[in-house]
């Protein structure tokens, strides 16, 4: 047993991490915000940049509601710190449409009623954009497996899979 008292929180003088300027490139725009290193990318988007389209469903990487695209890859934004993403291309749900023209997946989600409450939807759509880019989903079973990191408690999976399948059949990245 080593000097246990040293590890007790009460023995530590609380020292807060200093805030620092962080420049994030979100949806093509560079934004500089002041935040402490302990701010997750998810909270940076929601609380510091008012981009609340990205959702918090668990804060532990268990539900997928916070999925965004970083350099084209889908990640759980609750599992990365904002300062780690400086210099990276971050795309959120707010950045998928080109002006009034929706991303094909957004259109397909509306058409197929691939949501109910809508809370997991931005994460589902961003995840599906990442899925298409990965090019691994060849079958319906693949889509289901590779979309299983995104929980939908309303149970809209049947329609989510149909929406994604339709976009794949129409040639995937038609939007780009």
């Amino acid at each position: 047993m080593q000097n246990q008292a040293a590890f007790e929180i009460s023995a530590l003088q609380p020292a807060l991490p200093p805030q620092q300027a962080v420049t994030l490139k979100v949806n093509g725009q560079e934004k500089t915000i002041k935040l402490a290193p302990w701010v997750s990318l998810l909270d940076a988007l929601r609380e510091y940049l008012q981009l609340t389209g990205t959702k918090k469903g668990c804060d532990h990487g268990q539900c997928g509601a916070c999925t965004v695209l970083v350099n084209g890859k889908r990640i759980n934004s609750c599992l990365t710190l904002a300062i780690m993403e400086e210099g990276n291309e971050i795309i959120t749900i707010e950045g998928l449409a080109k002006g009034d023209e929706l991303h094909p997946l957004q259109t397909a989600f509306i058409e197929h009623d691939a949501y109910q409450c809508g809370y997991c939807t931005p994460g589902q759509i961003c995840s599906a954009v990442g899925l298409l880019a990965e090019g691994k989903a060849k079958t319906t079973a693949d889509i289901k497996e590779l979309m299983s990191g995104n929980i939908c408690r309303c149970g809209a999976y049947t329609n989510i899979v149909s929406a994604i399948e339709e976009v794949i059949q129409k040639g995937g990245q038609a939007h780009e």
Partner: protein
Amino acid sequence: MSTEYIGKPTSRVDGRDKVTGKAQYAAEFEALNLTYGVVVSSTIAKGRIKAMDISAALQLPGVLQIFTHDNRPGLAWFDKSYQDEDSPPGAPFRPLYDEKILFSQQPIALVVASTFELARYAASLVKVTYETEPHVTDLNQLRQDAYTPSKYKSAEPTPRGDAETGLAQAAIKIEAEYNHPSEHHNPMEMHATTVAVAEDGTLTIYDKTQSVLNSQKYISKIFGLSTKEARVISPFVGGAFGSGLRPQYQLFLAMMAALQLKRSVKVVLTRQQMFSFGHRPATIQKLVLGAQANGALEAVVHEAIAETSQFEDYSENLVNWSAMLYKCENVQLTHKIAKMDVYTPLDMRAPGGVSGMFALECAMDELAYATKLDPLELRLVNYADKDYSEDKPFSSKELRQCYQQGAEKFGWNKRNPKPRSMREGKELIGMGLATGAWEVKQKEASAKATLSVDGTLQVSSATADIGTGTYTIMTQIAAETLGLPMEQVTFKLGDSTLPEAPLQGGSWTAATVGSAVKQACEALKEKILAGLRSAKDSPFEPVQTLEDVVFTDGRVFLKNNSEQSVSITEAMRLAGENVLEVTITAKPKKNQQEYAMFSHSAVFAEVRVDEDFGTVRVSRVVSAIAGGRVINPKTARSQVLGGIVWGIGMALEEESVIDQQYGRFINHDLAEYHVPVSADVHDLEVIFVEEHDDIVNPIGAKGLGEIGIVGAAAAIVNAVYHATGKRIRNLPITLDKLL
């Protein structure tokens, strides 16, 4: 162009907002000088707080205040002030009331700081010492202590006849006990409240709720505010399934902090804290069925024990389904509850129905094997052509069609009745079915309809859309009633300043608010017609009633002369009105009381069970629903699909596991509390059978939020038996139970 919308598959009017991230939920509104509240939760299940040391946390720069039972402001005194529209009998939990701990994860402090991260860190510095008392959190241990509540929250058991004699006469008898654990709602959006305090002190409260009015009344009573001072807004709700029927403690805490600090405060619960309030109660249910050799029921005995908290008597309609679902002279029902050191259970999607009918429908399956009848045949032998429990005719009941169309679509006739007789490779195949029912209710509700001279219509009511499609179907109803294109109609909800609507729950919103919307639009039509008749040289002058005109395609036509028409905007101009507005209250008709009003379902499930691993895959489900008029087949199908997914969860995955040593839900996150994911969901099909009903409400819709889950779990459980020959009566059917 056609302005007929009811019954047509229609994409959600709020769809664009949902797919672009514009839809705003309770934690997503900007507020002046916003601060963040983080809740500290109790780590013991029962006892008292001996001491709380908040000094280390409080000295952090940026921490504004830490609210505890020691320093909270004075509050309302009486239980009545804390009761809400969905309170069961008893004394509601009061956050930060005193040092007593009534359940694990009880909120014991709120840390408010300038940032979320700081508040979270400070919360970790709050030191609490407890005096622990022994807790009881095992329902099984409380069988002998279970009691009959002095008042049932929803329905009192309605036994009839003499079950003992019935059983004595029965040629065949089955008796078994069915259990299921507690389950948590777990909507994707955690419960959250943002109280925005404006420069002038005006409060705007954004709350996750199934009723802005319920939240408003709750905080008004507790904090002594007028309804004008406490405006509650909730335009989007990220799922609820019942969790938003009662005001949750984040609302109380955010309000307390905002009023004390005179600052905007946002409180979002963690996913772990989503296991710290209401949940579907665990039940222990005994079923005894007695039947003649031909399967005709002689007696049904349904005895249930369910959990409740130490402070409220929660009970749901758990056993009465056994009195109404089938024809039987002798029905004995008991429903007891047992006090545990947990938070009070709370209505969760088809409360009672899904639990009670899981037991009844599994027992019926067992009876089918005992009588050597096909499970479908057994149900037809006992088909109830009236509600025997209340001796009333059904307002409508197309359950036979559900059985027939469902069986045909599913291919029920391909089922080999022998258990463990069907397989493909290493997988055992099983087919099961179950019946479902849900009570149909229309409540009183108000709606306001405002027509502007440019032809746009706004209709509003203080109801909610928790993903059910309220925005869309109300727009459809309003547009069709007034004959306007849907693009010209908007529906507003989720604002406590709007006309009164009941809680969004019980599957009654389509019927209840829909009827109010329809009647408000009809009242507008009367006004338009009155204006037309009084206009100079009007061809509408001789028209007596609305019967003689048709509102469609944005115009008013004479019924007997379609050449004569006038646009709505022209009609407004002729009447010299810029705005026409009516507010009406729709009440259920008295004659409804002469009828039993239910929606029904027949659910057919196919499972594939890996013989070596015991893993169960629900490969197919067909759910045939008799739910009255379907207003929007697109969103209606989604609701039923969601119900089936919940059935999969209940049958195979969902269980809030209590660590009895600590009295705590131990799997309190989404990694350990399993809900179905995409890979768990395969071929699901929904059939809406034609069902006409003039009695249930003016719309003819029965509501679909709940009927989709009822029966789904039982059908899967019965299919697992058929696949494996193993009767699992203890949910969920995890693989260990099959090995």
